[in-house]
Structure formats: structure tokens, C-alpha cells
């Protein structure tokens, strides 16, 4: 497999140098090599680009108003007029799936950002200062004893009402400890490097070493973890919405649509089929991207789970 990909890549590079392409002008060579290195990576990037485009243009490209009720059209199967059929209120499933893409990606992005903002400083400080690490990491491990969805559910109950911000906080608090763990163990191994020793010998302050030498090297594992966090969090948000405790039900979301479709599952399985397909595709794309980034940025991590 590896051999084949290599020769493929060489062929492709060779043909690239002969032909002039827009692709080559616009895309930096490092990224081009990364994106075309494996077929699955390219597929993931294309899927994600499509999803981003869909979420940006969503409301303008849909054939119907996603929230418009038309009871006379309820529970119609997929057809030329309604690509993905209609739901129990006669709303167009295709339009709702398209419109729901934006909220899915935004929530995934916010949750990854949240876990990053918490995980990077806390993890790095814990990894660098033993005494802090000893205490905080115990707590972090204990946080991870709660299964993700149960903790998220409990937090939603504590926050009181469904809402976008509450979902971000609830799921973010579930994934932040996992990010802390990743940053912590990366910092532990980074600080053993000779250049850190040298910096210490030169009399650099710990803060400066942390900011200038450690932080920059943490980027690779953090980016990889953030990509996986994205995949997990959109799945978890969908599960919360499916259980009816996520964002309010009147907002079109993939999980919420699947929840509403449950009653009609035998009569109208398409209400559930299509949002689920979109969700699975999005999660798959992020998982593939995460795998590719991990192999690319941090070959040492490849073998660990």
C-alpha cells in the first residue's frame, strides 16, 4: 500500500510540473503534498470543503424554506420535488439537512475551540510544573471517569435549559479534560529535550521556556486532538439533540430531525436516514483528516491510540 501510494504520488507530481494548473497556483505546496498524499485524505478535504460551502450558503441554496410547514405535503417519500422527502409537518427534509449543516459545524468548532482554550494552558502548566500537575491531573482523570454523554446530560440538566451556549459549555467541559491529558503528556516528553535543558542552562525563566520552546511544539498534537474533538463533539451534540436536551427543537439540526422522525420511522424512514448520513459523512471526514494530520505532524503518535 505504502509503496503504491509513493509511486502514485511521484507520477502525479511529475505530471503536475508539466501542466500549469490553477490548483497549483492557489494551493501552497506543503498542503498540496499533504492533500494528495493519500486518496482518503483528499476525499476528507473535499467533503469538508463541501460541508463548509453548504453551511456558508445554506439558506440561499435550499429549494424550500426549511421551517415552512405545509401539512398537505406531510410524510412524502423522496422524489424530484422533495429530494429527501418531507417530514410530519410537511417540511422539506433536504432543505432542513442543508440548513442544519451550519449549526453542526459551528457547534463543533466552538467546542473544539473551548477545549483548546482550556486544555492548552492547563495541560502545559501541569506538564511543566510537577506539583501543580500532580494535583490537577488527578482531578482531570477523575473527570474522565464520567462517560462523555452522561456528563454532558448532567451538565445540561444543571445549566437548566436547552440552548446553543449551554451545549457548547456542556460538551466542551466533557472534552476539555481529554485535551488537557494530551497536552500534559506531550509537555512531559517535550521538557526532556536537550534544547529545554540548554534554555534552562542559559538562565531562561520557566515562563519563557514554556512560551517560546514548549508551546510552539505543542501545536502538532493539539491540532490533531482538536480534529478528533471536532468529530466526537458533533456526534455528541447530535446525540443530545436526539435525546431532546440539546439546542431548542425549533432550530433545524441533524440530531433534532432524527428525534422528530422517530415516531414515523416505519412510515417515513427518510426523515432519519438523510440527516444520519450527513452526520456520519461529516464525522468520517474529520476522523480521516485527524488520522492524516497525526501521521503527517506527529509520526511518533501514530502507534498510540
Amino acid at each position, binding site marked *: 500500500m505504502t509503496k503504491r501510494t509513493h509511486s502514485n504520488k511521484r507520477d502525479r507530481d511529475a505530471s503536475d510540473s508539466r501542466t500549469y494548473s490553477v490548483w497549483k497556483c492557489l494551493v501552497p505546496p506543503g498542503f498540496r503534498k499533504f492533500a494528495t498524499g493519500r486518496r482518503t485524505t483528499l476525499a476528507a478535504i473535499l467533503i469538508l470543503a463541501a460541508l463548509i460551502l453548504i453551511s456558508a450558503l445554506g439558506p440561499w441554496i435550499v429549494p424550500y424554506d426549511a421551517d415552512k410547514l405545509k401539512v398537505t405535503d406531510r410524510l412524502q417519500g423522496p422524489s424530484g420535488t422533495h429530494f429527501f422527502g418531507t417530514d410530519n409537518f410537511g417540511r422539506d427534509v433536504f432543505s432542513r439537512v442543508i440548513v442544519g449543516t451550519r449549526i453542526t459545524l459551528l457547534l463543533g468548532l466552538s467546542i473544539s475551540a473551548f477545549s483548546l482554550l482550556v486544555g492548552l494552558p492547563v495541560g502545559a502548566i501541569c506538564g511543566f510544573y510537577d506539583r501543580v500537575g500532580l494535583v490537577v491531573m488527578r482531578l482531570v482523570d477523575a473527570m474522565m471517569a464520567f462517560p462523555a454523554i452522561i456528563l454532558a446530560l448532567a451538565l445540561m440538566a444543571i445549566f437548566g435549559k436547552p440552548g446553543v451556549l449551554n451545549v457548547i459549555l456542556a460538551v466542551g467541559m466533557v472534552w476539555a479534560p481529554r485535551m488537557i491529558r494530551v497536552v500534559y503528556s506531550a509537555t512531559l516528553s517535550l521538557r526532556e529535550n536537550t534544547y529545554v535543558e540548554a534554555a534552562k542552562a542559559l538562565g531562561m525563566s520557566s515562563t519563557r521556556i514554556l512560551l517560546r520552546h514548549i508551546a510552539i511544539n505543542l501545536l502538532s498534537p493539539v491540532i490533531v486532538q482538536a480534529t478528533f474533538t471536532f468529530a466526537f463533539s458533533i456526534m455528541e451534540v447530535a446525540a443530545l439533540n436526539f435525546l431532546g436536551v440539546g439546542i431548542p427543537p425549533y432550530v433545524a439540526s441533524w440530531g433534532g430531525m432524527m428525534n422528530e422522525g*422517530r415516531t414515523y420511522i416505519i412510515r417515513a424512514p427518510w426523515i432519519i436516514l438523510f440527516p444520519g448520513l450527513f452526520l456520519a459523512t461529516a464525522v468520517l471526514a474529520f476522523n480521516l483528516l485527524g488520522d492524516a494530520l497525526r501521521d503527517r505532524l506527529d509520526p511518533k503518535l501514530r502507534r498510540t491510540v
Partner: protein
Amino acid sequence: MLSYLVRRVGGMVVSTILVITITFLLLQLIPGDPATVMLGANATPEQAEQLRKTWGLDQPIPVQFARYFENFVRGDFGQSLFHRQPVLTIIRQRAETSVWLSALALIVALGIGIPAGILSSVKPNSLMDNSMLLVALAGASIPSFWLGLMLMTLIAGKLGWLPSSGFTSVLATGNLANLKNLILPAFSLGFVNAALLARTTRSSMLDVLNADYVTTARAKGLRQRSVIVKHALRNASIPILTVVSFTFASLLSGAVVTENVFALPGIGSLIVQSVLKRDYPVIQGIMLVVALLYVLINFVTDLVYAMLDPRIRYR
């Protein structure tokens, strides 16, 4: 071995205390007055006062915590606000379904994941390996509740081969045939977890299969099967075991949604109902039970590690 055991037990005790502390503190996060939040907006001030008294919510937080801890040690997890029963009783009633579901799902996950991983690793980069990896990756990306719903439509709905929902206790009725209701849920839950298991099995088997002692075993003329099972699999089993213990935790988590999909009367559907009804004592109780179970599983995993690999005991 003894000092290893002592250290592990110590670690477990610390984790247990921390888990209790976190569950306690999380409930302090409820914005505003917990009594009013729990009783709803229509509660009279007298009712709220009454609840604060019985729950000791009028006491300072350290006192409340001491009381909470004491109750925990006595096995008192409080009273459900909705069911008017002790939390532990309700959890015990619901536990059977969840245990059956998790156990069956674990069997599915292990039964698919480990053989798939071994088959992949024996001939790496073959057609078999690549298609297996692709299936595993897709499996890991499919939401288990969606898979459950789709199986339900197809197998229970269209074909009518298996019941689509519900479950009656096996212990109470003594009827093992009731487990038929759990086949679809267990499969949809287990399949998703098999994916990760297959990937880990493959990668740790690949690591081991390249080791010198495997080459030696082959050179001695041992049969392929004996090389794979006796030499490779046992040494590859530590990372696999880690994932199995993860899998168990993720089954507990996944069961929450799966139980809801298939209307199974387990812990998972209990917590969702409790969240919707703001039944905080039950939520707290479930969090505690599940997290402590996780701590226990980790402890057992550590012990099994030490049995599989004697070197670990001296670390």
C-alpha cells in the same frame, strides 16, 4: 506484587473520593437557588424552605459535603424527587437491562473487532486488510443511535425478524428468550465499538509480528496458528486490553442513547428521563454509580495488566 497492589488500591481510593467530590460540586453549579430550580417556578416559599431543610441546603458547603459523603458511605444516595423512592432502589431496578445490553454489546464488539484486527494484521495491506480498515473507519463514524434506528426499520419493521423495542426482565420471569429484544440494540452498540477495537488489535499485532521472537518462532517451524495465538496475541494484548476497558466505558455511555432508541428500561433511559424532569438526586446517583464502576474497571484492568506482563509490577 503486593506493593503494586497496595499502590493500585490507594489510587482507586483517591479516584473514588475525587469522583464523589466532583459529583457533589457539579450540583453546586446549578445557577440560582437549587431548591426553587428543583421544585419549579410554581413552588411556594414554604415548600422551598422545607426542601432546603430536609436536604440541608441551608448549611455551609463544607458541612453539606461532609453530610453527602457520610450518606454515600452508608449507601444512601438520596430520594428521587419524581419517583418518591430511594435513588439506589430505582437504579437497582433499572440495572439489569443495562448490564445485559452492555454484556451482549461487549460480546459483539469483541467477537467482531478482535478477529477482524488479527485477520488484518496477518496479511497487512492486502485487499482484506484495506477493506477491513475502511469498514472499521466507517463503523467508528456512524452514530450508534442512527445505526440502531436503521436496523430497527429494516429488520424489525420491514422484515419483522426481531422485536423492535421494549424488554422484560430475564431474572424476574426466568425467560431467557427475552434477550431476543436486545439483539438489535446490542448489535448497533457493539458494531460501532468493534471498529476501534479492530484498529487497535491490528496495530498492536503488527508491532509484535515484526519482533525477533516471532521470527524465531517461525524459524523453529511452529505452525502459523500457534505463532499468532501464543506468541503474538498474548504480547499484543496489553494495548488491546486498554481498549477493551475503554470499550466498556464507551458502551456504558453509548447505552444511554441506544436504550432510548429501543425503549429499553435501563439506566440510560432513566438518566434521560431524570434530566428532562430535573430529578437531580437521580442524575447525581447515576453519575456516581457509573463513574465508580469505571474506576473499578480501571482497577481490574491494571491488575490484569500485571498478570499478563510481570514487568509492569515493578514500575
